[in-house]
């Protein structure tokens, strides 16, 4: 094992960092529709009693639940994949944005950099235009060293400004890490 590999094996993974940053920002309600890329994050969240983890049938439902919880004083986040995000334009435009709800979304980016499903590759192209059209803050996380900074600051800004935020997990982060 090289020195470089040794230090990497001792580093926190992206999903361990995400879990830690959610905790430090008091985000304890997780709603998700699963995805293979998100699977390790979902697993560690389920295993940690700090989190209440709900797996509803659809992403819209997941957004509705964290909207209600936010208004009643409990912070939440919705995890989904790109194709799930594609089902959300109406709820974001009619609920999250006009009511000024800090809906946190963590989206694993499918459809690019080695996708094998044509549908994913096509619907992927709608994600950023929808986010930008609705004026929703969004950043892709591409490197392990950026995970903490981007997640922490996007979560803080969302609550400080009562605005939704989309954290996009790029394959540059999730796929490359998995292969290393």
């Amino acid at each position: 094992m090289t020195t470089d590999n040794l230090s990497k094996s001792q580093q926190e993974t992206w999903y361990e960092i995400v879990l830690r940053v959610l905790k430090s920002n008091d985000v304890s309600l997780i709603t998700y529709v699963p995805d293979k890329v998100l699977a390790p994050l979902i697993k560690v969240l389920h295993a940690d009693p700090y989190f209440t983890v709900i797996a509803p049938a659809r992403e819209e439902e997941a957004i509705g639940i964290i909207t209600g919880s936010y208004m009643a004083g409990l912070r939440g986040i919705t995890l989904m994949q790109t194709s799930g995000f594609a089902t959300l334009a109406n709820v974001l435009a009619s609920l999250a944005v006009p009511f000024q709800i800090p809906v946190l979304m963590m989206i694993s980016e499918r459809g690019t950099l080695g996708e094998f499903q044509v549908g994913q590759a096509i619907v992927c192209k709608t994600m950023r235009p929808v986010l930008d059209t609705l004026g929703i803050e969004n950043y892709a996380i591409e490197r392990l060293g950026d995970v903490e900074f981007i997640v922490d600051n996007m979560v803080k800004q969302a609550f400080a400004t009562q605005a939704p935020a989309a954290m996009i997990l790029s394959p540059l982060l999730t796929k490359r890490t998995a292969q290393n």
Partner: protein
Amino acid sequence: MSNLIQPSSARENALIMNRFDLTKRLVSKLHAKEAVIGGIGNNNFDLWANGQRPENFYMLGSMGLTIPIAFGVALAQPDRRVFALEGDGSLLMQLGALGTVARSSIKNLTMIIFDNGMYQITGKQPTLTNSCVDLVSIAQGSGITQSCWAKDETHFEKLIEEALTKDGPHFIATRIDDKTPVASTDRDPVKIRLGFMQALSLNQ
């Protein structure tokens, strides 16, 4: 032989009531700052018309999300009872939410369904409950055991009293007429949210 499954006799035998009147009966029984989430359109219009309680939330879009929003409120404040007022057309859009609620075994959530078998606000086009779909059967099949049709106004009030005293989740379905709502909600989303949040944080 027709393959069409007929609605349950419980639905067929339920009295056709009025949304404003039922909402009034509900609101008159709320004395502990219970939260009420009014679904899109006529459901929140008649809630608004029954006095603008600060603990009311009026959903202006996002059709189908009344129950998920109410569920989120109920999760965050387990000591407060939460009511979701939803229509047949809206619930049909998000049936999975019933299973989500059932699996959570949430105790402080009651879902009240106003079923007139039509998309009333867009021109009274029939919904699926007008022919073969029975929402109580779906709720029961989703795992919500305390689900039933209100037979009449007296029965509705009894079911509300049960929802206020016994652990949920509760699912109370009503058949209603096609009368237009008594008023319409002021559409200011931020004002609605801030008022609701203030009411919920003050009375936690």
